[in-house]
């Protein structure tokens, strides 16, 4: 599953693998840009947290950019996703703008949730992102329900549910996948297996070695992909989307990946070794993707640098925009508890 191997299995031109055959240069560029946006957004977020500019906690997805972007890159704004507590990447992958995300972090009215939600509830409903979730597994029934809504209106869209390896042991996982299967719903369950649920390894928390094994208990396909390889992720997603849109029902995709940062700010990484972390850093999804793009002659270094520069600019602008944002006033604390019958 190393970058080298993947590159090998890839050829330019007509018989290129689907990921390259099916996507234009522009689309590939956007995918790479979003991976960089996630990376730099997370780094800035971490930095601003350390500098005391934001409060609360945050869960960074550094190292998991390939699954967020590889899953979302072919979705439209009418397709739904539900995200997790580690949701910044999914949000950007689905098309959110970092300036409104930074603003949310800083608790500003300009933020996606007008400062009410923060990192753990960040959402961009306009692009079909129903939101990060503070409850592990909380998004599983929600995505399944969004898929049911699509089916009820005879739509051709799809709902995607991101969840972690830890979430797979919640009852919500079992109930949701079973319901989706018996009702044949257009939903794709994407397990980002980064090996740990907070401090507990999948080995200590989960009775099976691969989450995908559980798909058989719901009579749905369960595939395992290299979550750090965007092409592998995206090609599995193409198959699952096709299946969903054809009315053939749900699928489970397990992306094997790793978070190189701690679980959250309070994590002292007592449950894993430095070596393990360093080893995974060698499989950083962004350089892997860039190497492949160059190897295939799709982009040269100058073009790649242009992407990185654009991202630097976007992130810097977004950060500045957010810092200049407006603080909510205390008299608005009751706003939006209700749509009707409350304070508007």
């Amino acid at each position, binding site marked *: 599953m190393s970058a080298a191997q993947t590159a090998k299995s890839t050829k330019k031109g007509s018989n290129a693998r689907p990921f390259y055959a099916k996507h234009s240069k522009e689309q590939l560029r956007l995918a790479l840009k979003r991976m960089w946006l996630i990376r730099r957004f997370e780094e800035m977020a971490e930095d601003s947290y350390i500098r005391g500019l934001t409060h609360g906690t945050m869960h960074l997805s550094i190292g998991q950019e390939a699954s967020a972007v590889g899953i979302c890159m072919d979705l439209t704004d009418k397709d*739904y996703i*539900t995200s997790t507590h580690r949701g910044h990447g999914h949000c950007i992958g689905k098309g959110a703008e970092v300036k409104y995300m930074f603003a949310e972090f800083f608790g500003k009215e300009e*933020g*996606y*949730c*007008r*400062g*009410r*939600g923060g990192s753990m*509830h960040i*959402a961009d*409903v*306009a692009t079909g992102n*129903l*939101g990060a*979730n*503070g*409850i592990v597994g*909380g998004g*599983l*029934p*929600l*995505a*399944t*329900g*969004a*898929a*049911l*809504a*699509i089916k*009820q*209106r005879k739509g051709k869209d799809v*709902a995607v549910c991101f969840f972690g390896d830890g979430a797979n042991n919640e*009852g*919500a996982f*079992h*109930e*949701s996948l*079973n*319901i989706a299967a*018996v*009702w044949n719903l257009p939903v794709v369950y994407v397990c980002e297996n980064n090996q740990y649920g907070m401090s507990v390894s999948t080995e200590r928390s989960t009775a099976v070695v691969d989450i995908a094994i559980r798909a058989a208990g719901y009579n749905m396909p369960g595939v395992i992909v290299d979550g750090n390889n965007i092409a592998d992720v995206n090609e599995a997603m193409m198959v699952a989307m096709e299946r969903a849109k054809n009315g053939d029902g749900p699928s489970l995709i397990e992306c094997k990946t790793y978070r190189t940062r701690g679980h959250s700010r309070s994590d002292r990484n007592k449950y894993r070794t430095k070596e393990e972390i360093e080893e995974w850093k060698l499989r950083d999804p962004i350089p892997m993707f860039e190497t492949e793009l160059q190897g295939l002659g799709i982009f040269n270094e100058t073009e790649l640098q242009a992407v990185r520069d654009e991202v630097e600019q976007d992130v810097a602008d977004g950060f500045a925009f957010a810092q200049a944002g407006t603080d909510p006033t205390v008299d608005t604390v009751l*706003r*939006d*508890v*209700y*749509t*009707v*019958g409350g304070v508007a």
Partner: protein
Amino acid sequence: MTVRELSFAQAIQEGLAQAMEADERVFIMGEDIGVYGGAFGVTGDLVHRFGEDRVRDTPIAELGGAGVAVGAAVAGARPVYEFQFSDFSLLASEQIINQAAKMRYMLGGKASVPVVFRMPCGSGTGAAAQHSQSLEAMFGHVPGLKVLEPSTPEDAKGMLLAAIDDPDPVLIFEHKLLYKIKGHVPVEMYRTEIGKAVVRREGTDVSVVAAAIMVHKALEAAEILAAEGINVEVIDLRSIRPIDTATIIESVKKTTRLAVVYEGVKTLGIGAEISALVAESEAFDYLDAPIMRMGGVESPIPYSPILEKAAVPQTDGIVENLRKLVKGGI
């Protein structure tokens, strides 16, 4: 409006049918609501009229089922989820309280969650501790939810239709012993305004606030006391969240005495809230007697019919207590 008699259950069924006819986004889901017709017969033959896609039998999975309803609502559908017994909503309280109730707020008003949960509740059927609870106070404590409790067939239909129209999550507690009572129910699609209590009987000596089945027991008690010259005003609370404080305060100012009758456990039940909002209001200075609460006893609902009756307020006990309250025995 044309008027005819329907049972409480039939009124709900009519409301469900009219809502589904009027709006194709509306569908109902729950356990055994299809060919079985619902554990209490509320959904009856709706599956034959609307098909299995709009009258969905769910697997026995309340967290998933309720959560799927919430997700469908956020995504533009208008689901009505029936808990077979509201006791089972405790399996889904995460999705109701952490997700549905908070989603709009957490998203800064960018989404709405138009889901309706039907909650058959209450004791009196011999179903014991896990099938007889009255959990309205628990959910009534949660901002973001609307919590209703009809006492008549007319309100059962009107509240359901109002709830289905409402863009926010609404829980409707339906006392199981009410399903069979009959009353006039307009044929039209009408809505009972959410958050408004109603005076069911005018009186001058004491204000009794009651909910669901206790409204009927309070009215019986009022009838008996009327013969003794005690005039009881009976207020049907109808809505736990929001609570119609104005109607209650106005009544207490007039009668100078307040009693609350409810089936849920007394401590931290709806009587506590009604007592407290009067005690903190301008009506406090009008009170001529302590505020009386008659609620369920501090125990689970027992199976033995003798004990089951003893566990919740009954008419004779209400009569006795109100007499004391008015005659100054307290």
